[in-house]
C-alpha cells in the first residue's frame, strides 16, 4: 500500500506530488525533445544547435507558449520538490529545514519568472 512506501522526512504531500508531476512530465518531455531537439534545423544540427529563426518562430506560437509554460512549471516543481525530498533526509533541525525549503522555493520561483519573461511577451517579427 502507498502508506507503507512513504519514507523520509519530506512529508506525504511532497512524496505524492513528486509522483504525480513525474508521470505528467514524461509525455511533455517526450514532445519537447521530439519537437525542439530532434525535428528542427532541417534534420541537422537540431540537438542543442538551433538557429534564432527556428527558436523564435516556435516561441511566438501561442500553442507552444502554453505548452512551454506548463512544461517549465511542472519541471521546476518536480526538480525543486525532488531537491527538498533529498534535503529532508539530511537536514533535521526545524529552522534549518525552513531555510532550505524557503531557498528552494525562492530559486524555483525566480527561474519560473525568468522563463515567463522569455515565453509570455515574446514576439517574432
Amino acid at each position: 500500500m502507498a502508506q507503507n512506501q512513504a519514507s523520509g522526512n519530506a512529508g506525504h504531500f511532497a512524496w505524492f506530488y513528486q509522483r504525480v508531476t513525474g508521470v505528467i512530465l514524461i509525455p511533455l518531455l517526450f514532445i519537447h525533445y521530439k519537437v525542439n531537439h530532434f525535428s528542427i534545423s532541417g534534420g541537422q544540427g537540431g540537438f542543442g544547435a538551433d538557429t534564432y529563426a527556428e527558436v523564435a518562430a516556435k516561441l511566438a506560437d501561442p500553442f507552444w507558449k502554453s505548452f512551454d509554460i506548463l512544461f517549465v512549471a511542472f519541471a521546476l516543481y518536480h526538480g525543486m520538490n525532488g531537491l527538498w525530498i533529498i534535503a529532508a533526509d539530511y537536514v533535521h533541525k526545524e529552522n534549518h529545514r525552513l531555510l532550505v525549503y524557503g531557498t528552494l522555493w525562492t530559486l524555483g520561483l525566480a527561474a519560473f519568472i525568468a522563463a515567463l519573461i522569455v515565453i509570455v511577451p515574446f514576439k517574432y517579427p
Partner: protein
Amino acid sequence: MRFLGYEVKTGMFSWLLHRITGVGITIFLFFHIWTQTQIYGGPEKFNAVMEFYKSPLIKISEILLMGAIIFHALNGLRIVIVDFAEGSRYHKKLFWGAMAATAVLFLVGTWIVVSRTMLH
C-alpha cells in the same frame, strides 16, 4: 553483484542513481532557462550562443544528459508502479525492464544525435 568491495543491490543502485540524475537534471534546467533568455539579445547574439553548443564536448554532455533523463523517467515510472500498482510483487522484473528500455532508448537517441551532428 559486487562493486568496489560492496555488495550492490539493484534497489540501492537505482535509488542512488535516481537522486544523482535528478539533481543533475535540475541544475541543467536552470542553465537551459538561462540560455532561452538569450533570445532577447537578438539573432546574432543568440546564434553565437548556439554556435558554442556545437562543440563536441557539449554534444557529449548533451548525450549524457539525455541518458540521465531517460533513466530518470523510466526508473521514475518503475517507482510509481511499485508504489501504486503493487509492483513490489514483481519488482526485479520491473527493474530490469526499465533498464532494458533505458538502454534501447539511449542507443536510439544517441544514434540520432551522432548521425545528425557528427557524421557529416
